[in-house]
Every structure is written in structure tokens, then in C-alpha cells.
């Protein structure tokens, strides 16, 4: 009887853990695939289908270090546009990205896509985080 209870508890625990992980994964996939669509229609013309950018005019999106160091600002770049010197892979870019006009959920989706594509692996960026970061835009 005792063993039975222990095993049952263990099993329930495992199931819960599994379900939970699964849910996170599903959530991630949802953001990622929606983000891919946003990327293709709203970003790819400038940043390229492989996030390669365009010569010295438009920066590539595969500098994971830049993305990490400016993580809470990314959503602001999309919301308000970006202008002025930035350094990507040791090169200075001085272009102008117009404001994207995307909704907060779309920005969260596209950031999730970008930061997990082109060699980046930074994980999920969800709506809650986007909304919190948006409040802190400079």
C-alpha cells in the first residue's frame, strides 16, 4: 500500500512536470511561428531572409551578444524606431529603422523569433515581458 502511494505520487509529479514543460514548449512554438510570419512580412525586406542585413546599410540580426546586452530595449526599438550609431559584430551602423507599428503581442512574437533564429538561442520573450519593457522605454 505504501509503495503504491509513493509510486502514484511520483507518477503524478512526473506527469505534472512533463505537462508543464510541454506547455512551455507549446507556448514557445506559438510565439516563434507567429513571429516568423511577422518577420517575413515586416522585417525581412530590410534584414534579409537569413537575418544577414544589407552591407553596411542595415545590420544583421545574428549578433546574440548585442541582443542580450540590449534585451529590454529591443521592444522599444521596434515601437519607436532606431537611429544613430550602434555596434554590431564590431562594425558601426548609422542607419535609420522606422517605427514598426506592430502591436505589443506582435513585437513579443517577432523578438522571440529573431532571438531564436540566425544562430541566436535566447528563448521565449512573452507579452508580459514586452509590456513591462515597453513601460521603461527611453
Amino acid at each position, binding site marked *: 500500500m505504501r509503495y503504491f502511494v509513493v509510486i502514484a505520487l511520483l507518477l503524478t509529479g512526473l506527469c505534472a512536470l512533463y505537462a508543464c514543460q510541454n506547455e512551455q514548449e507549446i507556448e514557445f512554438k506559438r510565439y516563434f511561428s507567429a513571429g516568423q510570419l511577422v518577420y517575413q512580412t515586416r522585417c525581412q*525586406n*530590410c534584414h*534579409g531572409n537569413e537575418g544577414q542585413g*544589407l*552591407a*553596411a*546599410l*542595415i545590420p544583421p540580426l545574428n549578433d546574440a551578444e548585442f541582443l542580450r546586452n540590449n534585451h529590454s530595449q529591443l521592444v522599444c526599438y521596434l515601437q519607436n524606431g532606431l537611429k544613430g550609431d550602434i555596434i554590431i559584430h564590431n562594425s558601426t551602423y548609422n542607419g*535609420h529603422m*522606422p517605427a514598426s507599428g506592430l502591436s505589443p503581442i506582435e513585437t513579443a512574437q517577432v523578438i522571440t523569433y529573431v532571438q531564436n533564429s540566425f544562430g541566436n538561442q535566447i528563448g521565449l520573450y512573452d507579452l508580459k515581458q514586452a509590456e513591462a519593457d515597453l513601460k521603461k522605454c527611453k
Partner: protein
Amino acid sequence: MRIIIPAFAAMLLWSACSFNKNDQKRLPIYGNREAVTKTLNGKTVTDTVYQTIPKFEYVNQYGKTITNKSLDGSIYVADFFFTSCPSICPIMHRNMLNVYNEFKNGGNVKILSYSIDPSHDSVAVLKTYADKLGIAGDTWWLLQGKKEETYKLAESYLVAVKEDKGAEGGYVHSGYFVLIDKQKRIRGTYNGTDEKEVSKLITDIKTLQADPEQSIVQ
């Protein structure tokens, strides 16, 4: 009209192939055409006169004057853009770089990018853009001229351009690349935002280079 021109061109291509057995593949000739009858040695002959690109005068990114004469003896590709264009121009010029890299070392192929926003795209702005795009030398010219003339000239290239405050960036324009031969006739139009069509353009330029008619010294 959209269908008629390619259809007519296809017919022309077909006839060119089937009646000139010695000829290699030839590119069609686009645009309006006129039959002109004249008397030659007492005989009446009818010639087809094709639409050609009219005279123009612009300044390139080096501040040098560029006219239709500057293109004498060259096959060239033309497009219309502006440096602050947020929509299709980055894709167009990402693809145009493929054309540039293919022909930058000789071959008498030039690229002309007419700015449709000359008040912003000064010579200095065009030069900076060229530098950032990584282009040098005299194969790819970025051109500034009078806005109204550019709009009119675009029509001769069969490309639609117009100002529209409601459009992204303030202009509507189509991203076509237009291939012009040494006789200044239109030999192809390609969607510059489609990498595959731009590959076809590169192939077509080589076909045109091999066309005996193009070895005529102007």
C-alpha cells in the same frame, strides 16, 4: 495590356527562333513599335522602329554629369529607388548587388539607379549610400535629377512611379529592373524583389551580350 506585351514578345521570340535557325536564343524587344515605310534604291521597304529610352541628364554619386550618351556602347539595367525607402528598395538592392558582382569586372554592363526623391537624395547622400552598399568604380551609378523628368522617364522604362503621402515612405513605385540594350531598346523587365527573377536577368544579360546585334560599334 499587361498580357498583350509579353504575349506579343513571346510570339516575336518564337518567330525569331524558328526563322533564324542559325541564331542563338534572342531576347524579345518590348515597348511600342511602329512600322516605318521608306524608299531605298527605288524600292519601298518597311522597317520596324522600336521604342527607345529618350535623352536624359542626371548627376551621379561622384557629382559627374551622366546623360543617355554616357551609356553609348553599354548594355544597362535601370531601376528607380530612394535611399530612405523603407519598403522594397533594400530587397531590390540586395538583389542588384548580385548583378553588380557578376559584371563589375568588365563586360560593358552598367547599372543605373534613378532616385525618385532628389530633394533628399543629394549627391552626398547618394555617395554615402553607395559606400555603405559597398559599391565602387563606374559600373553602378546612383542618379539625381529633376523629379518630374524622372517620373516621365520612368514611363519610358515602363515602370510606374508616383508620389503618395499615404504610402510607406511617401512614394508608390514598382521594383522593376529594366534591361536596356546598346540600341537603347527595352529587352526585359524583372521583379527586382524576387531573387529568382534577378538570376534570370543575369542569364539574360549574358544572352544579350552574345547577341551579334550587340557587337555593333555605336
